[in-house]
């Protein structure tokens, strides 16, 4: 088990390095720089600024400088939020994105698995078709359509919930963003669970359990749920990462200062250090998540360990 884990970890490091170098090159390849603007600057002033931010150095030197900083844990200053370092921005934004993501994921799993299970148990009935239709809608309608609609209805017309993140400090401001973020995932997970549950429920050991006289609820809870969850578990790794990155739209609509927002703004502002910092962060996160899923698989399914 230890050897398995260690090998996985060591394999991740060159991946990360490659991602960082590629991202650095791509970010600098985009036309325009962090300080370009229609309010063009006189040559002297521009030269001073370039020097102050080391942008006048040749690219390989800038890359080395950045990597050296990374090793020290220094992600550099943001070129756009000039009073903050990238570490500070990520440090403030990530917990927020994590909160939202975690709550959305939890909501998605609980509601999705329940809905999928119910649909599987009541296969081919109206309930099943309803659940599947709703989930298809949830997948098809883009977030940036139903989120503003929800805001208009619940925040502006009915004023039950705040329209913006910064308008209040209470937990009520979490409700709409979390639900909006969770909806597509609920849809996916419901469908996934339904298919997987139908497959598991048709297996021999389930028939045995029913034959022994166990009720449906018990059978599902004790025997069917765990094997049915395997595909859902595989989906979790990429799903969590997708929620974190896909939360950009939600963050923008609700004005939440999360990582997704900073990433997009950073790209548009050519804020090299911020974009690179977030890429490093996300890359590390995704690699770690996949690592965790691998390890979990190894823990759950012994066959994997001895491959």
């Amino acid at each position, binding site marked *: 088990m230890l050897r398995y884990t260690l090998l996985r970890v060591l394999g991740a490091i060159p991946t990360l390095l490659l991602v960082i170098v590629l991202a650095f090159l791509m970010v600098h390849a985009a036309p325009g720089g962090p300080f370009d603007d229609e309010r063009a600057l006189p040559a002297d002033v521009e030269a001073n600024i370039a020097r*102050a*931010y080391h942008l006048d150095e040749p690219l390989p030197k800038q890359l080395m400088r950045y990597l050296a900083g990374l090793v020290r844990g220094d992600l550099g200053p943001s070129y756009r939020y000039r*009073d903050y370092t990238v570490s500070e921005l990520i440090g403030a934004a990530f917990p927020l994105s994590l*909160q939202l993501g975690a709550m959305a994921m939890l909501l998605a799993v609980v509601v999705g698995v329940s809905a999928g299970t119910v649909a599987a148990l009541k296969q081919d009935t109206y309930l099943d078709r309803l659940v599947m239709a709703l989930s298809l809608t949830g997948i098809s309608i883009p977030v940036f359509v139903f989120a503003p609609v929800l805001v208009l209805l619940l925040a502006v017309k009915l004023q039950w919930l705040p329209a913006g993140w910064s308008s209040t400090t209470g*937990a009520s401001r979490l409700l709409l963003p979390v639900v909006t973020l969770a909806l597509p995932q609920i849809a996916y997970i419901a469908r996934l669970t339904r298919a997987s549950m139908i497959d598991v429920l048709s297996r021999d050991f389930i028939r045995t359990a029913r034959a022994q006289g166990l009720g449906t609820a018990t059978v599902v809870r004790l025997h069917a749920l765990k094997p049915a969850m395997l595909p859902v578990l595989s989906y979790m790794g990429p799903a969590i990462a997708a929620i974190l990155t896909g939360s950009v739209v939600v963050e923008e609509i609700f004005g939440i200062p999360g990582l997704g927002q900073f990433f997009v703004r950073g790209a548009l502002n050519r804020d090299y250090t911020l974009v690179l910092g977030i890429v490093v962060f996300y890359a590390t996160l995704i690699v770690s998540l996949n690592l965790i899923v691998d390890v979990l698989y190894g823990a759950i399914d012994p066959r994997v360990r001895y491959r």
Partner: protein
Amino acid sequence: MKSLRMLLLFFLLSVGAVYSCSNDAPESGVVLQRGLPTDPESLDPHKARSTQAAEVLRDLGEGLLAYSPTGELVPAAAEHWEVSADGLNYTFRLRAEARWSNGDPVTAEHFVFGLRRLVTPATGAFYANMLAAVVNAPEIVSGKVSPEMLGVEAPDAQTLIIRLARPTPYLLSLLTHPSTFPLPPSLVEKHGDGFARPGKLLSNGAYVLKAWVPGSVLALRRNEHYWNNAQTALDGVNYHVVVQDAAELNRYRAGELHVTSTVPPDNFAELKTQFGTELHVARYLGIYYYGFNLSRPPFKDNPELRQALSMAVDREQLAAKVTGRGEAPAFSWVPPGVASYEPTLLSFALLSRDERETLARRLYKEAGYSEARPLRIELRYNTSDTNKKIAVAIQSMWREVLGVQTTLINEEFQVLLANMRDAEVTQVFRSSWMGDYNDAYTFLSVLQAGSAANMPRYANDEYESLLQRAANQLDAGRRRLYLEEAERVMLADHPVIPLYFYVSKHLVSPMVGGWGDNVLDYHYSQHLSLSATE
């Protein structure tokens, strides 16, 4: 059920994180909620650049002068001043009662320190050229001379002397800009460049920075030590960073914002009916224009063709139907409303639409183009719905009137900027210019040969010499004549197609008092008040 337990743990952690996260300022007193389109890049007055940074900085700091709600220059940190007969020496008498937010007095030395830091190359200040007329300023910026040689002196704590290399009639309006605000040396010594943070930043203005969540909100609270604190009605201001204007409108409707920074471009007529007097639309010092690339064919050395294209655009139609938000069609380069200036109009401004089109066709033909041999050009603009609508409208105007075949190219903002600066692929491009200060020169200087903002690459000796003469002119009336003549000369060359002048648009709640529409769109929070809350 290991996975369930893990999920439960996850949930508990996140719930715990929710309730432990407290990043907002206390809401006591009367607090105004304002919208801001993006975060300020910095609250260090020398590292800041955008109009929204300036907006917040004007609440935190105070320069020698400021503007009243109706846009008049008024004394601020300076009580009164004298100008020498040759216009080269300004002596300011500072208010003795002015204080920083920690109680220390504001002295002339703080202004000297601030201005020196502005021009020091290592600071990398964006507005380093704001006071280019000050003795030795350009030399310091280019690194030839040390910052101590700057022509500013503080003979005593209450007196500041600024010496200029050439008379600058609009100097006083420059001194309202945040880049000229004072800074105490102790602040930079103590915190280095990271002093612009809540808890560290010192204010000599009406408010103090209490909290800042980047991407979310800036919380400002009353500066008890401000010399004019007794006149400040609002106890605090919260600037909410709302990037999407549709989201900002929703928040205004929900009563969460008292003032919005803008209004979504669509459904303007509907908004007008719905909000009535809450919608404030005012003239703004900004122009939206198309520029020609004068360094390459077909527009190089071809003023007739340029004029033809300029005449074929129906600006009235554009402003009324395509943008429809109260913008004024532009027949000059300098917007109306600029202090002591009457913009010169394009030669064809007074012709009727038919006359313009006939003349345009004639010029088009004289330039060598016809139906058999139409002009094929590319029009570049940066991604935005408004830009697209306008480009499509003008493309069809050019086709109908002249038979020009225009290819529309939509580029991301930074890409377009790079292309405009290189001037290799551009032919016609969309651009805009916002004035830095309330004087015609901020617009006319754009098209000077050496200006980095001169995207068309316009160069005309007569234009340069007229501007030079205006710069050396002490008499305001004479100066104005030179500037107006320069504008006439430039417009006759048609390096640009002025399209419309911007307007500032805000939704202002009826609970807000003291709001004054002005051409600079400055709305100092210390002038505002909030009547009975809900």
